[in-house]
């Protein structure tokens, strides 16, 4: 019986679209026959057609198709042709429709009530199923239904705030199909909603619950309820009831991808848990617990690993499969995590509607929205491995930092996400430098060794300091990343400045053996040229070199031959010579002043390239120039276009025509995030190479070099002129918005005011009279234990304290 209905049930989903109408038009004769046959039919008597009626008849036709599946015929009688006694007369003609079983009227409906196909089907089915579907108003009524159903059958409770809508129809159709199997209950009231634990009963959402009453072992036990989380429609109810019918946990002995269970056919997510023979009971319990919590939404399969067909590696303990997707494997540590993962990540994603928007909104607050915190948090199951880093304590700190040529010390907090993100890079560097003599990487946990960190004046975390014996600690000011720190430490091993004693050594420093020794760290060499060791400027140059130790390789050549290196250049000694590589021409600068900090600034500036490739690590240096960027984006693949466009811009460098810009380029292969930059600038990614002007600090306009024009030097110049003369339209705009709080404020004060109105309120100005009266009343006091029915000592005696 049930399966027949089931087929019908599924069938109607497709049958609805059928074009040929099943609506019968009866004469009085055929009507008579129909009534004698004892069938159920829904009959409308009409005599003329107005626009309202016409619409109704359309709906009636549609309902005929739908109701046919339930063995109910929909009939229309034209009273103008056949005048049927009782029904074709009177005021009610036209505005009423009737449900007959045989010749007996089961119910009459206003056509306002049965206004459309959903209303017709739901009301008709509800009337037909009058004895099967119980209508409850109060929790007490529901409890009565429950206790009657216990150990007997399960209950399906539908809350239908408005009758006659699609949800109502879906529930009734389900009741028609499953009515013999489950006790169906319909309710409209908010009392029952509250009883079912709905937080906001005012919402006009239709809901459905499944109450497991059949399996309760004792009459006194409550029926456990499972709410359907998806919207109420025929498919969802069907799936939900099937799921509730399916065993809580299915067990299997094949790999997840091979498992064939009912859930897959129902198109619900499937969760796979694993079991080993020795822990079988435990695993089964876990699976049951998880399944109970995910019931109605997810199917749970327990896979026994002892079967050779199971090939899932041991490191994975959970797998899942979303409908129409492949099985995904992962590792979680606790059943709660599995539930959380499913509830919060998978099901949320797949939810069509945000049902309880408010609730979700606040539970969102527990999701980390900080990329650093979140990425560190995801590693919380990993133990911090500081294998190559020595952890210093108050006892070892002083001795350690004096022991090595270079001791690098990281000051960190364990609970600070940024520190913990960086410590991974730090460990990588330590590992890479493990075999380097004279370098030790150490770390101080400032949560524990707060005194060390205070003594070292650490106010920013993470901080890296470089200690050398007999020298003040040098702060590491570079990028907090593996590459930068590694390079810095190796460069720190090079003495700064490198003292050069002959022109041959200078040669070697700039492009010979000395150069090659460190070329893998940096191609740039900076050389201070002084005419003699007596030069007064040398000390501040040396100071600058010390400050820049680890950042730049700096040489010092104080010798009469130094002049030779600036011969023919418009600079006198002392001078600064910069080489960006062996084959490249040297640049020479004179010192602007004699202060070490000015030297540092000069050296940092001259080190910059004229046409740099922008990378994540070097951008800040170039942004400091505060010039608009003339930015060329180059694709991942090497192409002649890329090389030629680079060459075209390079060609322009010497002319000085690009001086108001910072000409630079981004290689999307090495700096993939460049693609996102293009997208943000233009809204799309143009064909590469692509040239833009980005006025980050000056107006925020972005101009795109017309992709159809060849990227040639003269075209570029023309385009730049057009941009400057405002003949070009900006292709995009860089927003200059302030970064406000990313989420709304969780206002404790507002909550206090709501929950405890006086708690957070300022007191009214004081009126001084209370308190004293109390005293007088206590004149008559009889001491006694205040516990018994004795003459009472006053328990309200002034609350004073007698002991410090």
């Amino acid at each position, binding site marked *: 019986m049930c399966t027949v209905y089931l087929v019908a049930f599924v069938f109607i989903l497709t049958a609805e679209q059928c074009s040929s109408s099943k609506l019968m038009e009866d004469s009085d004769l055929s009507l008579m026959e129909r009534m004698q046959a004892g069938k159920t039919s829904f009959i409308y008597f009409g005599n003329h057609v107005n626009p309202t009626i016409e619409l109704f008849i359309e709906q009636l036709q549609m309902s005929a198709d739908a109701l046919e599946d339930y063995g109910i015929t929909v009939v229309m009688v034209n009273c103008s042709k056949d005048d049927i006694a009782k029904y074709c007369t009177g005021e009610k003609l036209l505005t009423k429709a009737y449900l007959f079983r045989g010749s007996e009227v089961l119910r009459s409906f206003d056509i306002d009530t049965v206004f459309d196909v959903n209303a017709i089907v739901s009301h008709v089915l509800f009337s037909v199923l009058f004895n099967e579907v119980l209508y409850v108003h109060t929790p007490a009524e529901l409890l009565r239904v429950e206790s009657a159903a216990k150990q007997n059958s399960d209950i399906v409770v539908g809350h239908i705030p408005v009758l006659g809508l699609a949800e109502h129809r879906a529930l009734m159709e389900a009741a028609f199909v499953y009515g013999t199997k489950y006790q169906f209950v319909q309710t409209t009231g908010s009392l029952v909603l509250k009883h079912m634990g709905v937080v906001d009963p005012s919402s006009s959402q239709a809901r459905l619950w499944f109450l497991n009453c059949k399996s309760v072992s004792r009459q006194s036990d409550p029926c456990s309820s499972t709410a359907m989380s998806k919207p109420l429609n025929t498919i969802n109810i069907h799936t939900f009831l099937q799921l509730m019918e399916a065993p809580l946990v299915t067990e299997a002995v094949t790999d997840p991808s091979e498992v064939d269970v009912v859930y897959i056919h129902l198109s619900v997510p499937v969760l796979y848990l694993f079991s080993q023979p020795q822990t079988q009971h435990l695993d089964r319990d876990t699976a049951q617990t998880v399944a109970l919590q995910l019931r109605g939404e997810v199917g749970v399969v327990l896979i026994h690993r002892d079967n050779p067909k199971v090939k899932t590696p041991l490191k994975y303990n959970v797998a899942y499969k979303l409908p129409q997707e492949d099985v995904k494997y992962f590792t979680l540590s606790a059943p709660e995590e599995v539930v959380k993962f499913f509830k919060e990540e998978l099901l949320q994603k797949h939810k069509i509607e945000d049902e309880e928007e408010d609730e979700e909104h606040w539970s969102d*607050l527990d999701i980390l*929205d*900080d*990329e*650093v*915190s*979140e*990425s*560190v948090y995801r590693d919380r199951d990993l133990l911090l491995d500081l294998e190559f880093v020595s952890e210093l304590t108050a006892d070892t700190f002083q001795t350690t930092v004096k022991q090595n040529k270079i001791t690098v010390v990281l000051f960190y907090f364990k609970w600070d996400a940024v520190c913990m993100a960086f410590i*991974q*890079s730090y460990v*990588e560097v330590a590992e*890479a430098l493990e*075999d380097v003599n*004279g370098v030790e990487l150490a770390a101080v946990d400032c949560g*524990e060794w*707060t005194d060390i960190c205070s003594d070292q004046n650490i106010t920013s*975390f993470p901080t890296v300091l470089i200690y050398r014996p007999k020298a003040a600690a040098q702060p590491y000011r570079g990028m*907090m990343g*593996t*590459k930068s720190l*590694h390079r810095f430490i*190796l460069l720190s091993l090079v*003495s700064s400045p490198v003292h050069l004693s002959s022109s041959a050594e200078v040669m070697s420093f700039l492009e010979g053996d*000395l150069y090659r020794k460190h070329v*893998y760290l940096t191609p740039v060499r900076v050389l201070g040229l002084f005419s003699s060791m007596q030069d007064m400027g040398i000390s501040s140059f040396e100071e600058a070199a010390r400050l820049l130790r680890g950042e730049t390789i700096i040489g010092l050549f104080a010798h009469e031959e130094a002049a030779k290196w600036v011969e023919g250049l418009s600079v006198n000694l002392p001078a600064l010579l910069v080489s960006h590589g062996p084959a490249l021409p040297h640049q020479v600068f004179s010192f602007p002043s004699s202060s070490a900090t000015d030297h540092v600034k000069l050296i940092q500036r001259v080190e910059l390239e004229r046409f740099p490739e922008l990378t*994540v690590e070097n*951008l*800040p240096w170039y942004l400091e120039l505060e010039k608009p960027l003339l930015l060329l984006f180059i694709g991942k693949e090497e192409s002649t276009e890329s090389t030629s466009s680079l060459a075209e811009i390079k060609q322009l460098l010497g002319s000085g025509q690009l001086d108001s810009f910072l000409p630079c380029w981004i290689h999307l292969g*090495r700096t*993939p*995030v460049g693609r*996102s*930059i293009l997208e*943000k*600038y233009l809204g799309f990614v143009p064909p590469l190479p692509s040239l833009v002007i980005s006025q*980050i600090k000056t107006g925020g306009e972005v101009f795109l070099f017309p992709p159809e024009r060849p990227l040639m030097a003269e075209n570029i110049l023309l385009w730049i002129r057009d941009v400057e003369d405002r003949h070009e339209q900006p292709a995009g705009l*860089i*927003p200059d918005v302030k*970064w*406000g709080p*990313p989420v709304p404020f*969780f206002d*404790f004060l507002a909550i*206090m005011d709501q929950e405890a109105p006086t708690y957070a*309120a300022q*007191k009214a100005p004081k009126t001084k009279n209370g308190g004293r009266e109390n005293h007088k009343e206590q004149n008559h006091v*009889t*001491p*006694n*234990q*205040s516990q018994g029915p004795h003459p009472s000592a*006053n328990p309200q*005696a*002034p609350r*004073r*304290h*007698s*002991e*410090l």
Partner: protein
Amino acid sequence: MSVIQSVFRLLCVLVLLLTTTASGLHGCNNTLSHEYCVLGAGPAGLQMGYFLSRSQRDYIILERNAGPGSFFNIYPRHRKLISINKIHTGRRNKEFNLRHDWNSLLSDRPDLLFQRISQELYPSADDFPRYLSVFEKELGLKVIYGADVGRIKASDFNGHQGYVLTDQNGLSYECRVLLVSTGLWVPQQVGFRGSDLVEGYESIPTDPEEFKDQAVLILGKGNSAFETAQSILGRASRIHLYSPSPVRLAWQTHYVGDLRAVNNELLDTYQLKSLDGLVEGRLEDIAIVRREKNGKRRAAKKRNPTSTKKNESLYLTLTELLDDHNGTNKVTGQNLPGYHTDNFSLRQPYDRVIRCLGFRFNFSIFDGSARPPQSSGARGRLPGVTAWYEGRGTPNMFVLGTAAHSRDYRMSAGGFIHGFRYTVRAVYKFLEQRYHNIAWPTTNLPISQLQSWILRRVNEASGTYQMFGVLGDIILLQGSHCKYLEEFPLQALPQLSALSGHSVSDHGLLVLVMQYGLNQTDTLGPGRAESEWTKAWKSNFLHPVLYYYKTLPTDKDMRQRPVGWPLPRPEAVHHMVEDFLTEWDQPISHSQPLRRFLEHCLQTDLRAFYAESCFLLSLTSGNPPLFCHQGYLRKQGIVGNRHLWQHAREAGLMADAALSEDASVTEYLNHAGAAVISTVNFDL
């Protein structure tokens, strides 16, 4: 330096010469001058001495006894300190460990902690003067012992009110600033008929044998009463405790001055009906009377207490039942409450009545002009002081230590060593600002570091932890930076600028306070602990609370603050949910809600970003987030690695881009490592 000061200096040198060359030869006209006089070498006096000595101020500590902390030579009478000396905390954080060390004084000497003297959780009282002695000697504090100051009068030094102290030898001390740390040692008494028949806590025998089979009535229900009861519990026949208010248990009220569980064995014997008991009633209404063996009853008052015979019983009765007030009337059975109410609780006679009512401040040494008023709370036993611990109406006289407890009486720990060591430090900072123009020390922080700094303080600071609700950290917001002031007395907040030397900017300020909660639930019952951060304001246990004000609260705001609050209603408030382990460092429950609160107060995004995100934001936004501003754009970006980026991308928080770059980092490292090994010599 002002003229006054130099005159003082001169005098001081002179006097020092005098005292060193001719010590003991104090003439009547001898006068010593000091910028700071500290009265009393107890824990508070020595604590202040340490700070004054550290900043090389001209100070002297005057002590009437021969050694420091003489109170502890007598008290507690049963010689067990109930201040916790927890040495093994499992932590090595010195600041954190002070949260559980209630006896040590503050100093920069890590070896000058109380644990050097005693390893006991509840140490012997004898250890404390020993500790103070070591503290004083090793820090070389200037203490004059045996100087018993009997008179203090105010004096005008060129328009500046100072104080002149006179000792038992007539020697005078002229003090520009007087710091009173005399403690509380005068036993508190209540006048009632027969109070002369009562023995005092200060003089009772401590040998339990002396109480053998005696019925004892103890007046008071504080720690000294219970301590006394506990010591005689095994000998006395019955012990009754009588005082106006019911027992307040420290573990319920969180006030360490209330009855500590260390002393509460009598509660057990009371509730298990083992002959002991507690009774409430007013002390002023009772009378203690005696009754003779021969049946003649006489008013007790007439008898000389020295002739007391052991077998003469003492009865408790009510003043209103006595016929007359002149004391000549005989006490008959009708004068006893048992005659009127046959089951009157205290109807049986006692062998001893002991007064354990605590101590009061010694006001008697102050001349009218120099006498601070009696506090409104604490039965007037304490001097009234301002929020910065200056005596009310006695400028340039500050009260330190237990005597300064009126500010937080029955609220916090200001009456106890583990509390007032911090208020003394706060007063010292006030002095530095007022008399030497040295502003309250601050730490300047970029805003991006504020959150981790707050978390650091919340997880280790001892001053705000011990002096909960009284001392708080103040954060003066100044745009991209802020100034962090530690452990400022909250009640003095309206006078912040004058007292600290720092002004409040338009950006407002934050105040970080540790607080217990509403305490409306059963202390040990279900639902006592809150774990949901969204309900953090309902936390019952000590937890951090942040207050945000756009402008400095005024005195009026402070007076009208919500009932039970340490501060007025702020612009916004944030409670960090109580933590079972008092470790407020978890990302979801502690850090992120705190960050969002700070974001609201500062109206800026405080999230952290990897360098790659900052790179993107720096090129595509005119105004990248603060973290990028204060980190990446200063060339200090957090680069991260492939593994972390993967996580961030999976979480949908980081722009997705192919991960090719990182492969090159690994290659780079391999290459670099190899190159390093092959490099012979780094020293060029």
